[in-house]
Every structure is written in structure tokens, then in C-alpha cells.
């Protein structure tokens, strides 16, 4: 029952968030600030993680394809598909759920417990809209870009680790990348990226907005934001895979 109550509250929160902003100019400024926080601020961690995921996946696939019967360029192909289909969008989203999600929840939660949200309401400003819409829009703009960037870096990381460990030459790896490439896989990955970015930002904003109490509760909200964002990412990963890969 509590799940349905929380889900209902989440929908009402979204209804309050998706209204016309009070001042367009201020909203646009907020989007730039939040895009910088969410997108540019996550650039380093995503670079590191995606490069190493690509590198590790190349080594592990190389380790499993030791028969000598299969051509080695298949390693590149499998690394490409596994990174585009799963690792880049899902792992990026899970990492950002931790970094961006906790940040959003604690920022809005702190505003809530220090009466800053009340101050907005008393001024006649829709506080849910003011505190959350720019964060959600910025997340939906920048997180898919980070996913595309993660895809690219994971393939580069894969090529480098394959060459450095002597598993596969760069030429064979690139041949594998180009073999039977399906643009639909990128569409699938980007569908996941947009869905996950909305989930991370909206779930975290909601958790922040329902914070009541003090510093302890802000911490709890931040933890809940990460946990619920990760759970919803995994759940929607399954749903989208089922709907788009086996129609």
C-alpha cells in the first residue's frame, strides 16, 4: 500500500513540476547552471569509468574466446554491442544515480528543512517547479550526451587494452566494430539513456522535496534517492529491453 501512496505522491509532484516556469529568463539561466553541474561536473568520472569498462570487457571477452576457431575481430564486435546495448547506458546511469541523484536530493532536501522552500511558496512561487524542473530538463539534456560519450570512450578503452595486452590488434578490433553494425542498437541505448536520466533526476528531486526534519533526514533522503533511482533504472532496463529487443 505504501508503494502506491508514494507513487501517487510522485505523480502529484510531477504534476506540480511540469507547469510553466514563473520567469522564462531565470529558467533558462537555471538550465545552464544545472547542465554545468550535472553534465560537465560528471565528465571526469564518466571518462574514467567508461574507459575502464571498455578495457575490462575486451580482456574478459578475449579470455573467453580462446578456441582459435572464431576470428579475433569478433572480440571487437562483442565489445561494441555489449557496451552500446548495456554497459554505456546502464552503468553510466547507475554511476550518475549515485553522484547526481544524491546531490539533487540533498540540495532540495536542505532547502526544504531550512525553510527556503517555504520562502518560495510564501512569495507565490511554485516551489516544486522552481527547484526541480531545471534539474530534470538539464538531466534529460546532458545525461544522454554523457552516455554517447561513454559509448565512444568504452570502445576506445577496449581497443587500447586489446592492443596493450596483445589480445587483438587495433585493426582487427576496428574491423569487429564495423562488422554488422546496427544503428537500431544506438537508438535502443539512447531510449534507455533518456528514460534513465528522467528517472534519476525526477526520483531524486521528489525524495529531496519530501524531506522533513533536519540534517539526518536530508542524509536519509539522499540515500533513498540513490537506492530508488538505481532500482527504477534496473527495472526499466528490463522493460525497455523486453519491449525494444523482442518485439
Amino acid at each position, binding site marked *: 500500500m505504501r508503494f502506491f501512496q508514494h507513487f501517487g505522491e510522485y505523480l502529484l509532484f510531477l504534476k506540480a513540476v511540469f507547469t510553466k516556469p514563473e*520567469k522564462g529568463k531565470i529558467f533558462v539561466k537555471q538550465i545552464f547552471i544545472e547542465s554545468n553541474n550535472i553534465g560537465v561536473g560528471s565528465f571526469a568520472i564518466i571518462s574514467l569509468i567508461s574507459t575502464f569498462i571498455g578495457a575490462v570487457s575486451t580482456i574478459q571477452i578475449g579470455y573467453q574466446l580462446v578456441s582459435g576457431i572464431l576470428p579475433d575481430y569478433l572480440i571487437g564486435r562483442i565489445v561494441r554491442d555489449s557496451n552500446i546495448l548495456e554497459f554505456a547506458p546502464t552503468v553510466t546511469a547507475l554511476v550518475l544515480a549515485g553522484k547526481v541523484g544524491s546531490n539533487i536530493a540533498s540540495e532540495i532536501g536542505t532547502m526544504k528543512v*531550512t525553510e527556503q522552500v517555504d520562502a518560495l511558496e510564501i*512569495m*507565490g512561487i511554485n516551489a516544486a517547479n522552481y527547484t526541480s524542473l531545471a534539474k530534470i530538463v538539464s538531466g534529460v539534456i546532458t545525461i544522454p550526451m554523457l552516455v554517447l560519450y561513454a559509448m565512444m570512450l568504452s570502445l576506445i578503452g577496449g581497443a587500447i587494452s586489446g592492443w596493450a595486452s596483445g589480445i587483438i590488434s587495433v585493426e582487427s578490433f576496428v574491423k569487429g566494430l564495423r562488422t554488422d553494425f546496427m544503428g537500431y542498437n544506438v537508438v535502443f541505448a539512447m531510449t534507455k539513456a533518456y528514460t534513465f536520466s528522467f528517472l534519476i533526476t525526477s526520483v531524486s528531486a521528489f525524495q529531496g522535496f519530501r524531506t522533513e526534519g533536519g540534517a539526518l533526514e536530508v542524509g536519509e533522503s539522499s540515500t533513498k534517492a540513490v537506492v530508488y533511482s538505481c532500482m527504477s533504472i534496473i527495472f526499466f532496463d528490463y522493460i525497455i529491453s523486453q519491449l525494444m529487443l523482442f518485439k
Partner: protein
Amino acid sequence: MIVIENVNKTFGTKHVLKDISANLYKGKCNFIIGASGGGKSVLMKCMVGLVTPETGSITFDGRDFLKLNYKEKINVRKDIGMLFQNTALFDSLNVEENVAFPLRMFTDFTEEQILDRVNFCLGRVNLVNLNKLFPSNISGGQKKRVGIARAIALNPKYLFCDEPNSGLDPLTSRVIDELIKDITKEYNITTVINTHDMKSLFVMGENIVFIHQGAKWWEGEKEGIRSSGNKELLAFMEASEF
């Protein structure tokens, strides 16, 4: 003038506000006093629309706030300025941006006009050369002044102050009291002050509403407190060493 009539509010099984009625007058410092947990903060939250009472009416110069639609409520809220107990300044904005915030949201002023108004409001609360500092870099008294400057930026008709002296030293408290009193008289505002600081009450209080255990026990001018005969009110005053 704000007229409160038969306001009731319950949280679960707890009856927090019991049939409260009171008049809060224009151009006066109206005090709501009472012990902690007595319901005065809830009453103030009902007045500014953060809490909705189950029954009763709260009328701002003829506009029954509880019966207004969303847009009409926003129009009333634009006439309200509020000084919060913990100031509620926006952490991410500096002093200037905090005071400019309501002006940017609700007026079509140019940046020059906004800056002029901000400097006027900051000057009015005797704060100069702090424009670019963030709330975390200024003292508690300075934060209260910025809070007052933000509250008066849009020339409000109603000024609500929730525990304006909490956390301040006695000297700064008196300065803030004088400031609120001066602004009330200068702009002819209906000022509502929620406090249990009796010094403030005797310095600037004009109309007093005493809330005890969720009910209004006494209302009148401060001169009438000692002769009120109200045991709870007198006990409250004595406990405050007055």
C-alpha cells in the same frame, strides 16, 4: 488588516488550533505570543498559506484567503513579506541576489532598476558593502537584516516575522526590533510578529494575541496585560521576568 475567524486545525488526533479569532491591525506591530508548542507557529503558517486550516477564515483586507483560487492566492502572497526564524536565505545566491530574487520573479524591472531597489532595501536595513557576500559568510544579525530587506523588496502590505530575535544577542535583537517597528510605521504595513521575547513585546508591541494550548486566551493592547487578570498570561509574563 488581517481578520482571523474561528480557525481550527488538527494534526491527526491533536487539536492544534482551537477556534481562534483575532484582529491584526494595519500600521501596527501585532504580536502573537505564547509558550513553545502552543500553536502560534501553526497559526502563522495558516495565515501565510503554508498550512490549511479545517475550518474558519483568514481575511486580508476583505480577501478571504482560504476561499481564493490558486491565482488569487498568489496575488495575496505577492503582498506578503516574511522574515523566517532561520532567515531562509537562498544559500546559492549572494546577498544582492537574495534581495533581488522577488524583484526578478515578479517585476519587469531592468537590471539597473533592480540594483537600485536592492541597494535601497539594503540601505534601509543599514547593510552596505555586503552585496556580494553569501549567507554563509555573514553573521546571524546580518542575515536577519538581509531577510528583512528581501521581505520588503516588493513593498508588502503584510509583514510576518517568525521569532525575529531568536539566536541574536540582546543588543542586535533591539536593533532588529527597532528596524521592524520603523518599517511598519514608515510603510503602514500590517506586521505580525510571532515571539516569546517579552522585551520585544514591551519595546514595540501594540496589539497582543496570547495563544495557550492551541486556544486564544487573551487579546488586547500591551498596557492591558497586567490588569488582564488572565492567570496563564501573567504566569507567562512572570516567567519572562517582566
